[in-house]
């Protein structure tokens, strides 16, 4: 319950410096408040998986793999596939992560990504039935952190939708028809903001996260709908701040979605 994303004491001087930059409208890595770091997406990185995407968001690096296997449906949804989401904060990716069962941070992260995908109905679950009530496709979204340098929410969310959008259902291998693309119908994108002093910046890097008082992730889809929100950390937001953040997330989400779709299609061509 005690591992923290934020990495202990950042020298007070760094805090002062970041705040001073914010007053001048800029950030420690030169970005504007609404600028996300460079995004690089490599889909199909793990051919053995049904879908995969290696996402670099600045120095943060996440590998998302999709496995799709037949399984039993839940009793109350016999006509729907199943989706399950998991994050591994492997200790390889940060000096602050420890081996062991998922921490509360990993669980929160997985659940927020899950909600964005689930609530936007990104995957058409009704098309994942093999035999109603008996056998459906189970979609496993596994997110493996390879370098933690801030803002895992967005890196994971981007990787998940990119991996899903390029995944194939391995029907042939399981003797139930021909392979087909996983039916992805929406493109939810989470954008995370950090409150630093009086300012709120998008896509916080590691230094910014370490001094942020509050965090807000807003997941929006290509129709401009809001599908998920999650506030974190020990500080608060004013209502006005929340409303502005939601608006900003709609704008930034749109740009990030274009990058994702561009990379996916690039891959396909």
């Amino acid at each position, binding site marked *: 319950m005690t591992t923290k994303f934020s990495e202990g004491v950042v020298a007070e001087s760094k805090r002062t410096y970041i705040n001073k930059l914010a007053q001048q409208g800029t950030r420690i890595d030169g970005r504007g408040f609404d600028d996300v770091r460079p995004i690089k997406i490599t889909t199909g990185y793990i051919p053995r998986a049904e879908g995969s995407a290696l996402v670099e968001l600045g120095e943060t690096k996440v590998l998302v793999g999709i496995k799709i296997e037949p399984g039993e449906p839940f009793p109350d949804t016999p006509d729907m596939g199943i989706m399950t989401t998991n994050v591994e904060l492997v200790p390889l990716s940060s000096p602050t992560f420890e081996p062991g069962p998922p921490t*509360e941070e990993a669980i929160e992260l997985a659940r927020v990504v899950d909600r964005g995908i689930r*609530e936007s*109905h990104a995957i058409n679950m009704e098309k994942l039935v093999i035999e109603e009530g008996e056998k459906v496709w189970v979609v496993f979204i596994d997110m493996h952190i390879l370098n933690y340098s801030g803002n895992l929410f967005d890196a994971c969310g981007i990787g998940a939708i990119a991996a899903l959008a390029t995944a194939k259902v391995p029907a042939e291998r399981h003797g139930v028809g021909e392979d087909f693309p996983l039916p992805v119908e929406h493109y939810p994108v989470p954008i995370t903001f950090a409150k630093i002093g009086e300012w709120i910046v998008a896509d916080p890097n590691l230094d910014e996260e370490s001094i942020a008082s509050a965090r807000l992730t807003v997941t929006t889809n290509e129709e401009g709908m*809001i599908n998920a*929100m999650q*506030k974190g950390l020990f500080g608060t937001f004013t209502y006005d701040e*929340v*409303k502005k953040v939601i608006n900003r997330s709609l704008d930034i989400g749109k740009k990030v979605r274009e990058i994702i779709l561009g990379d996916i299609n690039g891959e396909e061509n």
Partner: protein
Amino acid sequence: MGMKADFKLIDDNGLRIDGRLPNQLRPLRMEVGVVQRANGSAFVEWGGNKIIAAVYGPREAYPKHIQDPNRAVIRARYNMAAFSVDERKRPGPDRRSVELSKVISEALTSVVFVERFPRTSIDVYIEVLQADAGTRVAGITAASLALADAGIPMRDIIVGCAAGKVDGVVVLDLNKEEDNYGEADVPMAILPRTGEIALLQMDGNMTYEELTNAMDMAIDAAKEIHELQVKALKEKYRGDEHDY
């Protein structure tokens, strides 16, 4: 969210299945000081929810490696009784309760003067005895009452409240059917004095308009809930009998 109902959640008169108006809270009852062994405690009955919260601390944080030399660590633990839901829940934390414990801990930390109690923990235990949607906001409402009952210095008494969308209508305080078959839920925790937002989650499918309408509703209702909190605290200190 998002299972399909084969019945209407809002009737032709705009009323909900339990007869409420869209912006109406379910019946809500609070009581303070119900766990004798705790430093502070509270009971909240909210619709079909029955939730009890108790506070232990500030006390020396254990195990030691969680101690913070600069502040108290607030550890909230949201837990559902095995019999609190229709299908028996296996005892012990699941992923949902771990997440809720985290966001509730963070929200409570935002109001407590934690820097006054370095190296301690303030343990907040929330037990859901019967669940009927909205347990996290009812739980945080009970938890902040329990903190007040324990005499923990705070800059405000947090109020939890949710709003959402069902059958396309923005409504306050979803009940179980609305939560199962509705389109969105927005649980919030609010500092009534300043209007600050200490907990905010959302899942579903909403336009910006709908979402802000829902948040408006929850923020309005928070005042009403806060009055009940204050009343419950006053009742205890008037020495009234309790009937929990």
